């Protein structure tokens, strides 16, 4: 991929990010931060690529630690977010909006 294509993708993705977040209720600030936090764990893919093609001991080591770090970021991040949001879905019904149970 050439640099210009990558920059195009970068700029478009940045705008998507700006647009997707608008007027978030304060209650959801923390879970949302935690979820986006888990998403940047994607950097673990970089670790996979480094280790996958590595050919020197230090590179193996660095890459393996990077994979472990990334996996903690991803797994921990999504699980903690789920726990935070789980507390919300337990909130009682009277507001009969299609609450947690709605989504399969």
């Amino acid at each position: 991929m050439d640099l210009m294509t990558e920059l195009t993708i970068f700029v478009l993705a940045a705008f998507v990010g700006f647009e997707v977040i608008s007027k978030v209720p304060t209650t959801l600030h923390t879970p949302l931060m935690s979820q986006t936090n888990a998403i940047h764990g994607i950097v673990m893919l970089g670790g996979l690529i480094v280790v996958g093609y590595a050919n020197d001991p230090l590179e193996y080591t660095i890459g393996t630690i990077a994979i472990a770090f990334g996996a903690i970021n991803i797994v921990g991040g999504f699980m903690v977010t789920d726990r935070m949001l789980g507390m919300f879905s337990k909130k009682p019904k009277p507001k009969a909006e299609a609450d947690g149970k709605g989504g399969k």
Partner: protein
Amino acid sequence: MSLLAVLEPGGSGATALYIVAFSLFIIGVRRGTHPTTAKQGNLVAAFGMAVAVVATLLLDGIGNWGLIALGLGVGTAVGVIASVRVQMTEMPQMVALYNGVGGGAVALIAWAEIRHGIAEIDHGTIASIPLDTLIPVLFAAVVGSVSFWGSNIAFAKLQDLIPTRPLAMPGQQVVNVILLIGIVAACINIAINNDDPNQAIFIAILIAAGLLGNLVVLPIGGADMPVVISLLNAFTGLSAAAAGFALDNVALIVAGTLVGSSGTILTMEMATAMNRSVGNVLFAGFGGAPAGGGGGSGEERPHTSIGAQDAAIKLAYADSVVVVPGYGLAVAQAQHAIKEVADELEKRGVPVSYAIHPVAGRMPGHMNVLLAEADVPYEQLKEMEEINPEMPRTGVAVVVGANDVTNPAAKNDPDSPIAGMPIIEVSEAQQVIVIKRSLSPGFAGIDNDLFYEPNTSMLFADAKQAAADIAAEIQQL
């Protein structure tokens, strides 16, 4: 042929899966902004991540499966155990920690890339590392390292491993600027010598950036930590995107950028909710707070102290009761006990509602989570703007482990470090009961004038125990 040609996603199959993955991320984040879809959104994003990982493992020529399995296994185990064991009260520091390891991963990957490039030059495969790889690698190294160390400090502060007060030393800003200039100069040195980059200089950059991360976060007071963590989260996202440029990996570019930009917006919204600007948080560090706020710690100021029985009587005969929860409630796990008190009061016909400050606890939404856990009806939770006009008509306001968010100094004292921060105006209520373990200052490290007002009674106790006692006393009335 670029240095990293081997690293490019080989077939278009991987790229197609990447497109699926980042579409799922975007949908996931979008759903995360609405209460009814947030939980589902998180699962959608997690599924997207699984797709992205599988796609990467399918790349041509990926090897060293043992090490990959080792890294994945260890990381997954740690992540699962940590997030299952963590208390709801400790969520904020957990997020900080996860953010930190993400930044650490970015910095390590950048280091591996530099080594790889140097090795290729030594073998004569390439003459120099192309700048469109080298510049993103340097960016990823600096920002990843700042994020790693900054997040660790944020974690340590929230976990009370180091003092939460602003820790500043004289000339700190100057030191930071000098460090930053040094880092930029070293990066330029590597970029200019891209046919023979010096690995020692690169490691020095990592260390200097780590030091900078420490120095930037240390002077920031604990109350501002949520904003800092959110900002570091956005930084880590950007550094992941930079790693994507270096590795020519579109999934990293899109997901990293998405987190970078949405995280920036989120940070600004959080700062607005606290009536602080991001610049203020980063560079003011609550000024010279400790000495400034309402009198020194030495002088003893008069206050009224009561027991559970008196509190029960005040509550049982009040026209209405507003509970103002704070971090102390979370620490004491008092949400169920407080709900019991509310149930007893409602049996006696006293209406109860809960006033939720946007940043009560240590994260926005912290209190909602805890109270929802205790089955407090959603419609009894009132936002600050909604409850403040009703305060003068409120019989008793019960402050449970909240402090700074009720401090009238924010409104009345323009010199206070928290001046201008919106507060729950409990001092407007006819009577105030503050349940707290001591008169010690809150997270912002300043004294609370509320405790010394004539209509305020202090009930010194652990929030959970106090609430249980009050509930028992009301029953006997």
